[in-house]
């Protein structure tokens, strides 16, 4: 597709206090980076979640987004599935395309 390279995008939404282990898994899976957005709001399985709080990043939801080659993604997906089993948090996985694949390992 227009010379783009296929990658896997993994988005994980967890409580802010649970974000460090998620970032650790992403690093351990060999991803070269991630984007973290704190203070995301919404309604889900555990009810309503407030958005950004002025003085508390710890108790809001954080979305962590990473893009990595499909062959590295499966280990990350499996580990995040284990991490989130039976607790609040969601993971979205999608194919995506990037123009500079060397940026993503």
């Amino acid at each position, binding site marked *: 597709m227009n010379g783009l390279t296929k990658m896997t995008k993994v988005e994980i939404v967890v409580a802010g206090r649970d974000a460090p*282990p998620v970032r650790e898994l992403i690093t351990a899976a060999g991803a070269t980076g991630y984007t973290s957005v704190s203070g995301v709001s919404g309604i889900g399985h555990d009810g309503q979640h407030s958005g950004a709080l002025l003085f508390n990043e*710890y108790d809001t939801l954080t979305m962590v987004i990473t893009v990595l080659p499909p062959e590295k993604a499966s280990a990350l997906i499996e580990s995040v599935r284990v991490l989130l*089993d039976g607790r609040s948090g969601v993971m979205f996985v999608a194919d995506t395309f990037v123009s500079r694949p060397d940026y993503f390992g």
Partner: protein
Amino acid sequence: MTHTLPSAPLVRARVARAADVVVPQWPLESFIAINPLAAAEAGRFEDAARSAPGVALTRAVGDYVDDFRAQRISDASLRSALLERVPELRAIASQALGSSGISALDVIVAELTRLPAAPDARRDGSPAQSRLDEVMAHWLAAYLDPEPLWPMPGHRLGFFGAWRLMVRHDSRLPRWARRALARIPETPDGALAESLENLAIDDDQIEGALRAELAHLPGWVGHVKWRADHVGDIDLTSYLAVRLATRVALGPTEQSPDELHATVPRDDPFERAAALVKSLELEADPNSVARVLMLHPTDQHAFTWQRAAELEYSRGLIARLGRDDVDESQRPISQVVLCIDPRSEGLRRQLERSPGIDTFGFAGFFAVPMRYTTADGRGSVDSLPALLSPRHAVTEVSVDARDGELRASRLRLRDAVAGGIHRGEAVSAAGFALAETSGWFMGLASLARTFAPSATARLARSVGRVPEAPAVLTVDRAFSLEERTLIAEAAVRMMGMTRFASLVVFGGHASSTTNNLFQSALDCGACGGNPGSPNARAAASIFNDSAVRLGLAAHGIEIPADTWFVAAEHNTVTDRLAVLDQHLVPGSHRDALADFELRSAAASDRLVRERASALPGATARTRLSRVRERADDWAEVYPEWGLAGNAAMIIGPRTLTQGLDLGRRVFLHSYEAACDPDSDGLETILTAPLVVAQWINHQYYFSALNPDTLGAGTKTLHNAIGGIGVLQGQSGDLMRGLPWQSVGLGTALVHEPLRLSVIVEAPRDRIAAIVSRNQVLRSLFENDWISLTARDDRAGEWHRYGHYGWIEIALSEIRTPETTMTTTGERS
């Protein structure tokens, strides 16, 4: 068939799940009070012991019964607690049993108060330390000690790498174990995966097995979790990789210590009923009595008593709260904004005895979250709540560069001399020479510090005096104008400030003590366990900024042109309020400031006199200078009581509490709902200052109930590991929580363990909406970790937030309280 080890991410996912129960432990140098059972907050308070075996969640039942007999817990509070905790009782509470006329509620009250208390189901002691624990504690101390006599070789490789490099030389391990450890994989993930396989732990058992390992050395494990997030040179995967590899290498003889088994008392309602009928000589069918008693099993008795003790306090407090409107007829002469810390309550009360002084309570970081670096070049601190990450670096800069350089160089020289002596004492070869050359002087100095601490401190200050260099903070570089305006607006709206005096004082707080490893526990919790004065200075700078004032005016907040903001520091040992940055005060405000300083000095004297009666070794008649001398006394283990006694948080206007002596037990956050129509201010207060207050409250609560496991034991046995923490003795686990000297005296508790009663004056529908959209608040209020009481406005009635919504508190429930700090029970 070949078997592959789990991938690195999968190993780390298992570790992360197992580490759910681990609460991070901040280093001692920036002590953050935290609920040691925070990992259990998603569940009910009374179920917390499931994830923390051996922990006492309440006092012993007999202690409460003693309080009941001494009328420290009333019959009314006990009945209210029962009706709240056992909803089924409400329908049958007044129903008579048999011909005796005794009601169902009376039966349960009688069992609680008139029969001997059932034995507690608490587990005693903590797991015995195994050889593996001893080995791990040594390696952790060697790696993490920031001031080691001999730095650990290979430190740059991280904990796992350094350990792998050195473990072959560990003489505590047998030779065959060392040989086995030399062959383990090079990465912690690989080593941990291999150990799990060697131990033949099935996939579905891994999480439990890792959790069991993490339950040992909980102090060190908590600190490793903190360090993984804040420093990054060690994490729990590395720790577990080392631990399990060593366990495998030591072989099957190295067993896990036996689980502690609780002695669960027998709970037969028919036996209980028979005993009650016989004891009270009731003319009632024992079976009917038993059916009532079934509603309140014996394992619930302590929790009911605990709730009764809390209701006793909170009902009394609520009964005293005012209903007056704010008097805005006269402009105040000065306004003082102090931290919500309960110690500020005393100072606010004493300051307000001077006509024309208004006071406010606000989070002690004054809405300025920053990483702060002093002009002295002595490093930086994160001066902000632990709920935030530092994003703004503020530096102190000397107004005159030459003065600043001179001061910094003198301070460096002083630090170098002190550091040299310290190292000389510790190095075995130099110790004798140091003693020969300077021992006579040190001996005399020690005698002087012991018998004349105040005079010695004055002398030391004058000899080593380094002239102050006037300085300013680089606030306008660290925060954009938009951010500074937002900070100022948020502060004004959260506090409900609608008018401004010509002099407004922001008072941060700090504790000045000597030879006290736990000093940062006495500093400002909202500033990350640091002194609050830098934040007060930054806030004053923001509010004096004309561009910020223009921005505020555009948002409807007019600060008069003649209003000047100054920063001050409240020393909680001496209770002096020292005005800072005097060089910034314009001539037009010098007289007003001098007048304020006179009045604040008088207020501080009154407060020291008030506090003295509660301090060990002092009375209300002790000379003020003697009480203040505690700040300089290196042998004083009770410099102040800190936040001992904290029991409630009140969010509302000062008219609620004005003129009341709350005994320095209450966090006070100013708030005026009319100034916060969209509830953003209230949501910020409930999700930040309230959470910090709850952490502090639970730290004191559990340190008081579990002084040797969730508290730090006694100060007299402490052995410091750099600025990380303390051990009891030479080695072992890092102690958690507060020392006994923060919560008790002798064998008696001074801090009465009460979960925080949060009292709010704001529309209840707004409060409920905020609770509903914030998981942290839902967990805390709905799982009974803390309680919430509110009224809509001055004319409204008080309602308690419960599992079924708001319930109005009957006037008959409210009675006159006891608010003074008292000894509450024996240490168990």
